[in-house]
């Protein structure tokens, strides 16, 4: 016997999409402020600013620009994770650990989309081999990236590395293996333990494609203890 009244007992709430368009972001024309539904301030990143960050870093730090952006991304990701956890667990009235994987992923996808960072998807097919693949499409960071011959979304790689490190409780590194700025249909990011991803740096230098890098990574032997 299923008692529907009992199903509805837990506070009568049946929460839907917290990050829904028209619900999550609110703007006020008079004050010129944008806020999320909890009243936390949001910052708009105009295209010009993103372009200027790329150009400024390139000029100031040269080849280190990627590493600087990656580290900025890690800081961002760390704070983003803390806010994400707080908002999601408050709204759904459960901790992240109590959430089902699909529910958590759906939150992250919707959150990513509503912030205008493109669409996010996670491929867990390589989990057994020790890797996660994040796929991001329509990224504004790729769109504004300077033309080069290597993937350029270091900021997102940093965010993902920090986010998934905190989520899984293990230090994970992240490399980008395909980039919309190079004509790819999506930005692929591979997440894994730093010592296992290290070999891929050379393959990126050789401009190998995502599939080749992932195949080689999966074949590579994990060193002891990883």
């Amino acid at each position: 016997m299923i008692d529907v009244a009992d199903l509805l007992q837990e506070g009568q709430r049946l929460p839907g999409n917290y990050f829904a368009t028209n619900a999550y972001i609110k703007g006020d024309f008079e004050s010129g402020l944008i806020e999320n539904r909890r009243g936390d301030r949001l910052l708009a990143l105009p295209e010009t600013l993103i372009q200027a960050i790329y150009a400024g870093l390139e000029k100031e730090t040269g080849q280190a620009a990627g590493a600087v952006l990656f580290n900025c991304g890690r800081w961002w990701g760390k704070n983003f994770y803390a806010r994400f956890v707080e908002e999601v667990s408050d709204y759904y009235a459960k901790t992240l650990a109590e959430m089902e994987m699909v529910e958590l992923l759906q939150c992250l996808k919707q959150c990513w989309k509503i912030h205008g960072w493109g669409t996010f998807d996670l491929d867990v097919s390589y989990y057994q081999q020790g890797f996660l693949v994040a796929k991001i499409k329509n990224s504004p960071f790729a769109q504004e990236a300077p033309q080069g011959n290597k993937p350029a979304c270091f900021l997102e790689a940093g965010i993902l590395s920090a986010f998934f490190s905190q989520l899984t409780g293990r230090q994970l590194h992240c490399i980008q293996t395909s980039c919309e700025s190079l004509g790819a249909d999506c930005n692929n990011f591979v997440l894994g333990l730093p010592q296992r991803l290290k070999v891929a740096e050379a393959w990126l230098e050789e401009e190998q494609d995502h599939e080749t890098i992932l195949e080689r990574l999966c074949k590579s032997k994990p060193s002891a203890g990883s």
Partner: protein
Amino acid sequence: MHSEIKTLLYEAEEHYLKPAEIETFKHCASFLAQRLETYELLRNQEIAIFQPVADQLLERFPQEKQETLERALKHWLSVLRYCAMAMLLNNQEFLQRRILEWLTDMVQAHQTQEIESALYQLLQKQLKELFTEQQLALVQPFLERAEMTLLRSSALAQL
């Protein structure tokens, strides 16, 4: 808010509404009253609608874990709540963004389409018993949209 009323408000800026516009307004107002009445019924009858559905679902899938059936019931309890509000707002996008986008992946991941399809049929049967045809016609487009998005598109994706 209803888009027709919104348009009238914008257009009424510097003149009284014309007779035809007043007719449109009256029509919208009476439509809104009907919708509100149906909304109240759906709200007040929530358990009366779903308890027989739950009982029949249990009979139909005796081997299934109770937890799975409960999850499917919760999905449709919330779909009907959002359908009711979307009906009141006369806004399909509200339904799509607030719940359907959210649930589509969940239904697919749990592979409960068969149970949820049966649940949808039982829900339709129950609504037909409790509501007049006119009331049903107001909420039906939203329920159909939910069924199409959650059950049919995922069934196609599985092929």
